[in-house]
């Protein structure tokens, strides 16, 4: 069973894929007061790779480490930091915990190379991320909305999507 920790993954990526890892900048998280005092800047412990080296890193996980199953792609909108963070979660087919590689793109130009040409299972995940967050996956063969209708304007899971509902009538959008 494959048991690779995030720290070990970073170590291996640092050795085998030089210049793929980037040092993650601390994030401006604003935690709920009920969650108690927290450090001001949050630094992720996962491996953060540069967007242009994402495909190489994912193929390294698949072909060298054997993490062949791409479980999901998660997007987080860090509005205060002006960036989107994408987390790709991989599983080893023999079992064991998952591995995550992350990548960060600016909110103004959210372009990430697509994994679909080498990883057909990424197709729907990337279309979902495009639908709800507007991430442009360059090289994707069929980047269209998957949940919402094609005529819909805007990306509803972004933090700056206008607030909804009866409460916000008359509020500037």
């Amino acid at each position: 069973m494959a048991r690779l920790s995030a720290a070990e993954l970073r170590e291996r990526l640092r050795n085998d894929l030089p210049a793929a890892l980037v040092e993650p900048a601390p994030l401006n998280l604003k935690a709920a007061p009920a969650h108690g005092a927290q450090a001001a800047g949050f630094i992720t412990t996962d491996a953060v790779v540069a967007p242009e080296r994402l495909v190489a890193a994912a193929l390294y996980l698949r072909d060298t480490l054997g993490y062949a199953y791409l479980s999901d792609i998660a997007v987080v909108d860090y509005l205060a930091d002006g960036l989107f963070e994408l987390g790709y979660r991989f599983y080893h087919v023999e079992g064991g915990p998952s591995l995550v590689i992350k990548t960060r793109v600016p909110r103004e130009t959210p372009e990430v190379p697509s994994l679909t040409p080498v990883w057909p299972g990424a197709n729907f995940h990337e279309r979902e991320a495009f639908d709800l967050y507007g991430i442009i996956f360059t090289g994707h063969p069929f980047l269209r909305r998957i949940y919402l209708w094609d005529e819909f304007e805007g990306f509803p899971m972004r933090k700056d999507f206008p607030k909804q509902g009866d409460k916000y009538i008359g509020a500037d959008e």
Partner: protein
Amino acid sequence: MPDEQEIQLDLERQGIFLSTLNRLYNWGRRSSIWPMSFGLACCAIEMMAFGLSRYDVSRFGAELFRASPRQADLMIVAGTVTKKMAPQVVRLYNQMAEPRYVVSMGACATSGGPFRDGYNVLRGIDLLLPVDVYVPGCPPRPEALLHALMALQDQIDHQKLGRLRWYGSGNKPQTSDFPVPTFGAKGLEVDGRLIDPVGGLPLLSPYNAPEFGETKTGSLEHPEIVRHFPIMDPTVELEDAFKAQGVSPEIAANDLKRDEVGDGKA
């Protein structure tokens, strides 16, 4: 009508069977309400339990879930109606033969439920279809759906043949197709007009539940609804999700419209 029924029932107990065409018609109709097998979300699971042997809707003559709208009398809108699904729901309803009934099952189908303020859920199927019975709950228990069926049967019992909304005299708006909404940039549109905007109130008045199947306008109305709930006043700003900023106007005006709770001495 109720007196008439009392007399009839009284006579039946004594072995004398009198009836009217109305009653025979309604008896036939109420005893074979065939629902359409059509589920949208988790309420459909309860609807399956309602149809199967434990709750056993066949006791009420409604056991045949038809897979085709042409053969169904009752549409149970069981679950969240997303805006993407709403045109198909209306289209299925249009394909049903009259007389046809709609049960709005659960909070989502009735009003949008917890997703009402979201961007993708229709705020109640009654914006698009005439609903006969609403079932509250999230999801409703199968017993609640059985009760809804009994309520619908009660409504059918009181139908009058000449005044039915499908084949009575006068204009019969419900025999024509209901408008199928189309997709717009901000939400669903009917005749090019936004009916359920992404931010704001729906601009369509609900089709009220017709009482005994008679009164119904059937026309689309687009009132510019002006509602004011002080607690929803936009001047009450939420700075973030955890902290409300400012004082709501009714508290500032000391206008809570109720007496303060005394300490019991006065």
